[in-house]
């Protein structure tokens, strides 16, 4: 199950947020050796201050953290524009109200890891990608852009996302990095769901701030 957490509301989810920052440090600094800033065992960057939308996968029974990702509108500050612009050609850029950027996708490893779905995609990653598909429909998006390595490229393909590489892949540190786009909408969402074996919604949306009844009253005219 995915929690959908806006950056400005993250203080309401201290456990989920802390588990996410710790897992990001483990995944990106320790396991993948990326050049990211880790402080007190937690990885954060400036984009975490730009009110991103987090999707956090949790065990539906215990609430334990399984995995997470971060979405940023490409009309505002984002990683491809501000950190990795060299991945795109000269005069190429991605900036659209209907394209958001996904970054920092990760899931817990080893024994905490839930069973894998039928095509070998980690269940939490599959759930996160299905979640992106759902959020994209809610937000009126047409595509998701992301900077990823070969590992995530394989996950995206296996999960039915059909990513298209754009610009020119570059070596960053020890990792070959790609910028890619994939389509969103009812069709693409269904293909992700089919690939990862998920039926129906994976989102736990924030509770409506109010039951329908008083509003029915307010708008009875």
């Amino acid at each position, binding site marked *: 199950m995915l929690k959908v957490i806006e950056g400005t509301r993250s203080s309401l989810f201290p456990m989920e947020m802390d588990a996410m920052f710790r897992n990001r440090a483990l995944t990106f600094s320790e396991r993948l050796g990326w050049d990211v800033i880790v402080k007190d065992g937690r990885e954060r960057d400036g984009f975490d201050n730009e009110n991103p939308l987090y999707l956090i996968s949790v065990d539906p029974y215990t609430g334990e953290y399984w995995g997470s990702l971060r979405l940023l509108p490409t*009309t*505002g500050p984002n990683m491809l524009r501000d950190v990795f612009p060299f991945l795109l050609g000269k005069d190429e850029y991605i900036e659209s109200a209907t394209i958001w950027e996904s970054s920092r996708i990760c899931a817990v490893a080893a024994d905490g890891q839930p069973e894998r779905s039928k095509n070998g995609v980690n269940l939490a990653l599959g759930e996160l990608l299905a979640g992106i598909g759902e959020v994209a429909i809610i937000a*009126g998006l047409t595509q998701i852009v992301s900077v990823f390595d070969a590992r995530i490229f394989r996950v995206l393909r296996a999960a039915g996302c059909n990513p298209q590489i754009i610009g020119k892949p570059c070596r960053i540190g020890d990792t070959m990095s790609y910028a890619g786009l994939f389509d969103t909408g009812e069709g693409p969402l269904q293909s992700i769901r089919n690939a990862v074996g998920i039926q129906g919604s994976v989102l736990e949306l924030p509770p*409506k701030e*109010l039951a*329908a009844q008083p509003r029915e*009253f307010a708008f009875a*005219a």
Partner: protein
Amino acid sequence: MTFTIDSAAVKLTDTILGYSEQDLEETLKTIAAEMGVCHIAYLRLSPDKSADASLLAAIVTYSVRWQHRYFEKQYVLIDPVMAKGSKAVLPFDWEELASDDPAIQAFFMDALSYGVGRNGISIPVRNRRGAYAVVSFSSNHSRQEWEEFKISNMVKLQLISVLIDSAASVNLKLSSPTVKLSKREEQCLIWAARGKTYQDISDILNISFGSVKSYLDTARHKLNCINLTHAVAVAIATGVIPQKALR
């Protein structure tokens, strides 16, 4: 239930490029009619401020009567679109904002009686400089029609919202400083904004204490302000004194 955005895109692009003679508010009225919604409202918000200070600019198609009432009743302190607009990332339906709070219920009821519309959705917009805005569309569709409207048009609502944000940014910039200060008035006001006293300013500019006072008074009158603090705030907010003059 669906509409095409071509015409709206052309109109807004004309405003952005400066080709349009029409007032942006009038353009939004035309676009609202083409989309089949009652109203469009553009709010530029400051994310770090409390609700009463967060509204930086507004362009709305609501009736003047409703705008006056909103101001009079200080609805800015109650309106949940204001509170949520500077924090949200996802579009939000006004139905999510209704609450047990009788003040909010009364606000929505009052808005309905002033023709704002019975349904609304607000689209948060981020622009290049990281500024926050929210564009709201309200309608009198039945609940079911409204749900269908949103599902079939969400992509277009996003696209129109970002165009409205660009058009408003251009529009607001063009209409900013209308007050013209004399060189001395401007110098005195800038030094006052930098925290200097009348005596300091008199020493710095090498003019009499009385002259400083009279330049600041005329500047204050031109800005239509009740005291010097007010005048400095308005001068900076409207760009009469450029912000960089403070450094």
